[in-house]
């Protein structure tokens, strides 16, 4: 099995089914990329780089969004 840690939760994928890029991961999770910012292993990935930022098994991905706050 292959694995990504997404927002602290381990997500497993069958061999060869790991989302290839950040954009693929967002599509897999049904998350609208337009409102999200990502970190992969602690490094910020700009939105315009989602489609070319490749993912490997074992990486930690944080998907972050603006929310209501004071």
């Amino acid at each position, binding site marked *: 099995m292959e694995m990504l840690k997404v927002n602290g939760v381990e997500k497993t994928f069958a061999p060869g089914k790991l989302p290839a890029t950040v954009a693929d991961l967002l599509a897999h999770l049904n998350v609208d990329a337009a409102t999200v910012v990502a970190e992969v292993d602690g490094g910020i990935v700009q939105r315009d780089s989602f489609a070319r930022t490749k993912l490997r098994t074992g990486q930690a991905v944080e998907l972050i969004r603006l929310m*209501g706050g*004071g």
Partner: protein
Amino acid sequence: MDKLVIAGREFDSRLLIGTGKFASPDIMAEAIKASGAEIVTVALRRVDIDNENDDTLAAIDRSRYLLLPNTSGARDAGEAVRLARLARAATGINWLKLEVTPDPYYLLPDPVETLKAAEILVKEGFVVLPYINADPVLSKRLEDVGAATVMPLASPIGSNQGLKTRASLEIIIEQANVPVVVDAGLGLPSHAADAMEMGADAVLVNTAIATADDPVRMAEAFKLAVEAGRIAYESGPAAAGKRASASSPLTGFLRD
């Protein structure tokens, strides 16, 4: 009313509004509109990957309002800097409400970590609006490292207690060379008007509006209070005195 100028940018409204705690995104959007605010604070959190309808801020028209991301949740300077960089990546803007609140009970800001983070973030090109306790010395230190405003608290966040830090706020306002935004704890429009009459440049309100029975009308009430308070300040309030001073002439009484 004079314009509010922060980091060279002009604003007509002196009321900043937070977007937390609203019952629905639609009520939030209506309340923001009724408040007349031009600066709207937002937080940064993990996406709820199990909930597709997680985007509660979609109702905000981002072409009309300056989003001011905060670093809420940060417990030290390092976490605040990380959140700041993410916020800039998320919004494309470099304005930031810096808050470092390690204490979960009173949510009081950590002055040492806040100053440390402000120094780093100003150097990275952020327009930093730091949330602080009402500390006149810290205010000057933040000004020295290039903070765009200072945002001293009136009382603990969300407590609605009003201007508990009045004496220190007065000193901060007297000494400041950057706008003073009184943030946190303002529970009623009268509290906001009071802060503005004291000479605060602006106020930031969230809980008192979001958790009112009618947030939209309460937003309007705060708008009017902030305007009234500012106009009163600009008009030069009359002196207060201990004794009576007759408003009517003390001559021409109908008696011998």
